[in-house]
Structure formats: structure tokens, C-alpha cells
């Protein structure tokens, strides 16, 4: 029997070796729905787009803006941005990149049927090609986010895309970009295959990537993705479940790369109405007012949560306790804010002061399939709240039911995760007073409103000086956090796992870039 086993193990070894030569096979955690880079702004789609296409501006590992197809940008006056294009960049079909391609790409984002990237280009009211390498973009009012917004606009070849629909991108006909990889094949729900672009501008004499051929396999089931890595069928996987981390660390053939993600988990507390939905005293009678409107109650609930325990035990270290709505490397993070220390006694005192010595009962709403360990986190927080006298019943919903309910304002105490380029953007969506004309508060489920924060944000978006803008964004963040507008929980840490000797430069924006894998 032993001998038989040994033979079986020996026979299995050829399958267990990593890919030979210059192939790289990566297991993705979420489905890629379309190759068209101007359709949906979904992370899996963008992840692929950034292999084939470039944008005028790129972001580095810390989610900070760096030059892409534009080598530099500046403001000419308060409403005009000038971009200098990189010279000598060639598309995969050999044609040279021109300002016309850039203008075409910006306009295309507004024309794709059901496309959602218009949000990034709608504020541009005029485009002027000064010379083939200089482009001026005008906005109606001073707007600081133009270079950030353009990071989301892939530059496509005008020639290839001008008469193309979404199907032509899926088939590859229109997949002509300037990026480090050429498109080879998209098998929906299964895989995306790419080949190295040897003429890549970013290669600078060397090779743009160590890999001639890259296959992205779509394996959304966590254990199957890990099995693919263990069996040697995949060389690297993204979004390793936290429960598997100890096991991967023990395996001598594997290694991990981790980085704090831009995704922050926090709680919205309904402060919109006199009666928060579903909030009662413990006997089930409705309360006289809405306790969440009292900052002492909000503070008490924040104190009642043991963030360190959740990060260490529930998340196996793959989380950092948060005091901000954006994670440490991100623009506008106020590092002087410190996570609320765990203080159940203090929480009880505050609740008593606020007139709730016996606490109250509420529903804690959370997603069941969106964020890392979301449902378990909700259960843990509910138990912690019970210790200070607040009885929380956990209601976990799949994200397809959760987000529409949240948008309708049906939750009293709701968990949400948010990834943002910058602190002011996060505050604009989550904390600013809801105002459709200004685009403020689109996800402000709690109905929180603070005119001073709104004013700081408006000034931030209008200031084209980055230093000034970051200072304003930090001030707004401090105000919101000290007022417990929302209760931040933690910043997620993203984990990639790969077979040795591969190494990955992990990214805050969670993207998995084949060209950032290296064989050590």
C-alpha cells in the first residue's frame, strides 16, 4: 500500500511543477463581464483592461497618481488642464498614439450604450488639440479631479474602435491598445489570454513583463482557486480567503504578498429620521427619539467594538483597525486620527449619560457575500454590542438585495465597504449632505449632514493645488470622524498567493497585474 502511494505521488509530480518558461497562469476571483473598457467600472473588467490599455494617468502601488500616456499635466487657468502626451507610443497594430485617439476615447465613454464611465468625462466641456502631443481639456467650473478621473478612461485606438460595438471588444477586433499585453482570447466565464507586447513604451529597453503568455482563469469558488494553486495548475491566485492563510504559510512551495487595501469597512448609523427603522427598547416598544442623533450614543457604539480582536482573530491579521474612511497610503488619509480604543465600561457610561442605561434593541444589517468575512464580522460586532447592553439582531443579505435596500434608506445600523482614490471622494459619497445637483451624498445612507464638511469638500474639489486639496480633505475627514458621522471598523488587507519563486508587488487598489509578477 505504501509503495502504491509512493508511486502515485511520484506520478503526480510532473503536474505539480510551476509553468515552464515564460507562461503565467493567474486565478481570478470574480467574473470578467466585458472586454469593452468603457462599459462598466467593475474591478475585474478594469483589471483586464489595464493589461491591454493605458490611461493618461496611472496609479502606483499606493494608489497615488503617476504619469501614464501623459508625461505631465498642469492647469493653464482654473478651468483648463493641459496634458503632454508621451511621444513615440505605438498601439498593438503599429500605429502611433495621437491626441485624436485620446479625444476619441474620452468621447466614447459617453457613447457606449449603457456605459457607466461618463461620470469621469462628463465634466469636460471642451477639448482642444494644441499639437499632436498636447491636449487641453476645459471644465465648466474649477475641478481638481480631472487627472484622477482620466485614470479610469482607457485610451483605445480610434481606428480600431470607431465602428465597433461591445461584441467587437469581446472578440478582440477592437482590443487594440498601448498596454504591456496584446489581447489573444476571451472565453466568457472561463479565461482571458494575453500575449506580451514587446514594443511596450513602459519597457524602456528591457522586457515589459517576464511572461510571453498570460492566462487569467476565472475561478470564483475560493477552495477551487486554492486547489488550482496547490495542484500547480495556477501559478498565482488573488483574494486568498483569510481562513487559508495559515495553511499557505506552512507550505514551503508557496508564498504570499499582502498589502493594505483601499477598501474600508464601516457602519452607517441612521440619523435622518426621528425614528430609526427597527430601533426599539428591549421590550419592543418604540423609542422616544432616534438615539443615533446623539453623538454620545454613536461614540459609545464605537467604543464597544474591539477592532483589534476582529483584525487579529476573525481576519487572521488581514485587516488594520481603522480611524479613517480611507486606508493609510491613500490621498487624504489623516494619520493623526487613531482607532477608537476598546472601552466597554466607557461605552456603558456614555449610553447611561445619553439616557439609555439599559441600552436598546436594533437590527444590524450586513452583506453576506461581498466583503471579506462580512457576516462573521457582523456577528462578532453584535456580540460586542451585547456586552454594553445594546441588543443587535444580525440580518445578513446577499449584495443584490442589500444595496437596493440601503439606497432606499431601510437600514438603521448597516455595514458597508468602500474603496476610494482619495479621502475627499469617499466623504463626498458617504458623508456629505445628499444633494443630487452637486453629486454629494449618493451613498450617504445615514442621512448625516454637516455644512462645515460640505464646505470643506467643495473647496477641496475646486482647489487645483494638490497640497492644499489634501489638507482640506484631511480636515474634512477629521471633522467627520470626530463627529462619528459613520463608525469606521477596519481597512482590509488583500492577499495574493503564488508558487515560489514568483513574487508580486502588491497593490492597494487590489488589482492583479501580470506584469508586476516577477520570477525572483
Amino acid at each position, binding site marked *: 500500500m505504501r509503495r502504491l502511494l509512493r508511486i502515485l505521488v511520484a506520478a503526480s509530480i510532473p503536474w505539480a511543477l510551476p509553468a515552464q518558461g515564460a507562461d503565467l497562469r493567474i486565478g481570478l476571483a470574480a467574473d470578467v463581464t466585458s472586454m469593452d473598457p468603457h462599459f462598466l467600472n467593475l474591478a475585474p473588467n478594469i483589471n483586464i483592461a489595464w493589461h491591454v490599455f493605458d490611461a493618461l494617468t496611472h496609479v502606483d502601488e499606493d494608489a497615488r497618481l503617476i504619469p501614464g500616456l501623459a508625461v505631465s499635466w498642469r492647469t493653464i487657468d482654473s478651468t483648463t488642464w493641459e496634458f503632454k502626451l508621451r511621444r513615440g507610443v505605438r498601439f498593438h497594430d503599429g500605429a502611433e498614439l495621437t491626441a485624436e485617439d485620446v479625444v476619441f476615447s474620452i468621447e466614447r465613454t459617453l457613447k457606449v450604450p449603457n456605459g457607466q464611465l461618463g*461620470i469621469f468625462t462628463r465634466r469636460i466641456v471642451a477639448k482642444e488639440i494644441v499639437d499632436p502631443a498636447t491636449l487641453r481639456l476645459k471644465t465648466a467650473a474649477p475641478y481638481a479631479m480631472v487627472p484622477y478621473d482620466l485614470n479610469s478612461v482607457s485610451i483605445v485606438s480610434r481606428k480600431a474602435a470607431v465602428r465597433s460595438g461591445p461584441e467587437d471588444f469581446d472578440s478582440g477586433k477592437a482590443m487594440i491598445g498601448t498596454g504591456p499585453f496584446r489581447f489573444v482570447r476571451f472565453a466568457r466565464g472561463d479565461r482571458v489570454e494575453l500575449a506580451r507586447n514587446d514594443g511596450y513604451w513602459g519597457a524602456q529597453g528591457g522586457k515589459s513583463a517576464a511572461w510571453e503568455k498570460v492566462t487569467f482563469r476565472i475561478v470564483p469558488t475560493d477552495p477551487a482557486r486554492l486547489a488550482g494553486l496547490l495542484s500547480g495548475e495556477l501559478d498565482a491566485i488573488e483574494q486568498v480567503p483569510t481562513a487559508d492563510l495559515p495553511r499557505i504559510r506552512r507550505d514551503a512551495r508557496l508564498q504570499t504578498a499582502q498589502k493594505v487595501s483601499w477598501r474600508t469597512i464601516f457602519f452607517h448609523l441612521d440619523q435622518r429620521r426621528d425614528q430609526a427603522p427597527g430601533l426599539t427598547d428591549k421590550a419592543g416598544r418604540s423609542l422616544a427619539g432616534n438615539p443615533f442623533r446623539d453623538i454620545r450614543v454613536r461614540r459609545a457604539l464605537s467604543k464597544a467594538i474591539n477592532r483589534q480582536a476582529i483584525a487579529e482573530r476573525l481576519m487572521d491579521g488581514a485587516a488594520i483597525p481603522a480611524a479613517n474612511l480611507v486606508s493609510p497610503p491613500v490621498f487624504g488619509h489623516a494619520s493623526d486620527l487613531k482607532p477608537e480604543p476598546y472601552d466597554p465600561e466607557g461605552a456603558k457610561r456614555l449610553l447611561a449619560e445619553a439616557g439609555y442605561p439599559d441600552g436598546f434593541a436594533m437590527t444590524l444589517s450586513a452583506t453576506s457575500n461581498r466583503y471579506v468575512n462580512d457576516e462573521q464580522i457582523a456577528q462578532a460586532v453584535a456580540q460586542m454590542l451585547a456586552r454594553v447592553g445594546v441588543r443587535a439582531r444580525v440580518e445578513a443579505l446577499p449584495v443584490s438585495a442589500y444595496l437596493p435596500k440601503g*439606497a432606499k434608506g431601510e437600514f438603521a445600523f448597516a455595514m458597508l465597504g468602500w474603496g476610494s482614490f482619495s479621502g475627499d471622494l469617499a466623504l463626498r459619497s458617504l458623508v456629505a449632505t445628499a444633494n443630487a445637483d452637486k453629486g454629494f451624498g449618493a451613498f450617504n445612507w445615514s442621512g448625516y449632514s454637516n455644512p462645515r464638511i460640505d464646505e470643506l469638500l467643495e473647496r477641496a474639489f475646486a482647489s487645483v493645488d494638490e497640497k492644499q486639496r489634501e489638507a482640506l480633505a484631511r480636515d474634512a475627514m477629521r471633522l467627520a470622524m470626530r463627529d462619528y458621522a459613520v463608525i469606521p471598523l477596519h481597512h482590509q488587507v488583500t492577499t495574493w498567493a503564488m508558487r515560489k519563486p514568483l513574487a508580486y508587488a502588491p497593490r492597494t487598489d487590489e488589482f492583479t497585474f501580470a506584469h508586476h509578477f516577477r520570477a525572483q
Partner: protein
Amino acid sequence: MLSHIARRVLQSFGVLAVMSLLVFAGVYAVGNPMDILVNPQSDQIEIARATAALGLDRPLLEQYFIFIKHAATGDLGRSFAFNVPAIGLILERMPATLELATAAMLIAVLLGIPLGLWAGLKPRSGAGKTIMASSILGFSLPTFWVGLMLILVFSVWLGWLPTSGRGPTVNLFGIPVSFLSLEGLRHLVLPAANLALFNLSLVIRLTRSGTREAIGQDYVRFARAKGLTETRIVGVHVLRNVLVPVVTVVGVEFGSVIAFAVVTESIFAWPGMGKLLIDSINVLDRPVIVGYLCIVVALFVAINLFVDLLYSWLDPRVRLGEAA
């Protein structure tokens, strides 16, 4: 016969209409798909714009009538998530699911009937008892767990078979199939076995009880008395009677296997229709959900019709189209 088929087709249109209205209203009640698909950086104007562009801001009945109007011309709408026609999306995924389901049913029938016969003819033998005991396991173990165990044993430990995915495909009459290449077959084995397990157990048990019943019947004893060979008795007289219930169940189960191969497809990252359905439900991609269920209903109707016809061939006493 013809009137029977016509009546079935008419009935199925009624089912389709009711089902599509139910699904439509159900998805509508869950919420606005744009709340899920929308870019998180969007503001209210952008969300409203996207919602209006898809006509999702109109009253439910109006949306439904627009859908019916287009559906009558064969257009089930564009997927919100994939931005391609829903019907094309589903048909593109269908060969993968059909192949998986067919492979699973072949395994179930080709293994299940002989094993069931054996267990029925020799119920007290060791082999017979083992077969029956294993079939209980096949019933009771959850597909999800079995799938993971198959991957663990055959892919991770032994390294014989790939963990997931469909592998290369070969075009057969323009339809991509994977069973024609060795690599494709290796990808097909585990998911097909996983999907087959439940039905394999079912077929074994059905065949066994049918065999046990038939073996004591007068016509079998009479055949024995006539001196027919055991092969002929089992192969013709017993088997033919055993097959009637098996065909019914296999027919119904084939439909369910196609429609609900979701679990297996998810575990093995098999790019079939079931996985598409789950992904679509997760983002409330209504055109795909409605389109998928319409196709599944049509499939069920077709399979049931086929089973009826097969019945009348297996059992000459069954006459289609008469009062039933």
C-alpha cells in the same frame, strides 16, 4: 399524436407567460440593478441616468409589456452586466452545460443500470450489498462537499486531473465541445462524475427495485420454464420492464441537471449556463435571468415530450393523445 404535441406546445406558452411575469415582478421587487452595477464613484444624477437609459424607472407593468413586445420578435434584451444580447449569452454557454449534463447522465445510466441489475439479481452477495451501501452515500453526501473532495484527491494529492475549467474545445458542427480531445476529457471527468453521483445512486436503486420485482413475476418464471437463457431473460424481459420507470426519472432528472448544475459548475469553474444564472442573480441582471428561465422551461417541455414518446415505444400499452 400530433394533437398531443400541439397541446403540449400551447401549454408551454402559457407556462412561459406566467413564469416570465413572476420572475419579472420578483426581480423588480428586489430592487434596482443599477444600485449594484453602478460605479461607486457615481453621483445621483449618474445613477438616475443609467436607470432611465435601461427603462428601469418606468412602472413594472409598462416594463413588462415592453419586454413582451420585444420577446415576441425573439429579442430578450441586452444583459446589464455583459452588454450583449441575453439570448446569445445563454446560447453561448449552453453547449458547455449540455455537454456536462449529458456526460453526467451517461455515467449515471451506463454505470447505474448494470450495477442496479447486479444488486437486484444478487441482493445477498457482498457486491450487491456494497453497491447499495455506496448508493446511500451518493444520495446523502452534499454535491458541494463531494466536488471539493474530488478536487482534493484527484487534483491536489494525486495530480491526475485538472482542478477546474473547461479546457480546450473542438468545434463539432460549429458547436464547441471538449470531449473530443484528451485534455478536454480530463477537464470533463471530475465535474461530470460529481454531477452524476446523485443520479447514479437514483438509477441504481430504481433498477434494483425494478429487477427485484420483475424477477418474481409470472412471465419471468414462465420464461425460465421455457428454458430461455439467463442472458435473454435478464437482457430482454427483465430489463425492458425495469427501463420504464428509469426512463421517466432520467428524463426529469436530465432537465434538472441542465437547469441546476449550478453547484458543480461553480465549484469547477465550468463556464456553463448555471454559473451564468447565479452570476446574473447576484447583479439582478434581469434580461439574463428571465431569458435563462424561459429557455429552461422550453427545455423541460421538450424533454417531457420526448420521454412521453419514448414511453409509448417501451410500453405498447401507453397510447398518447387519448384521455389521460
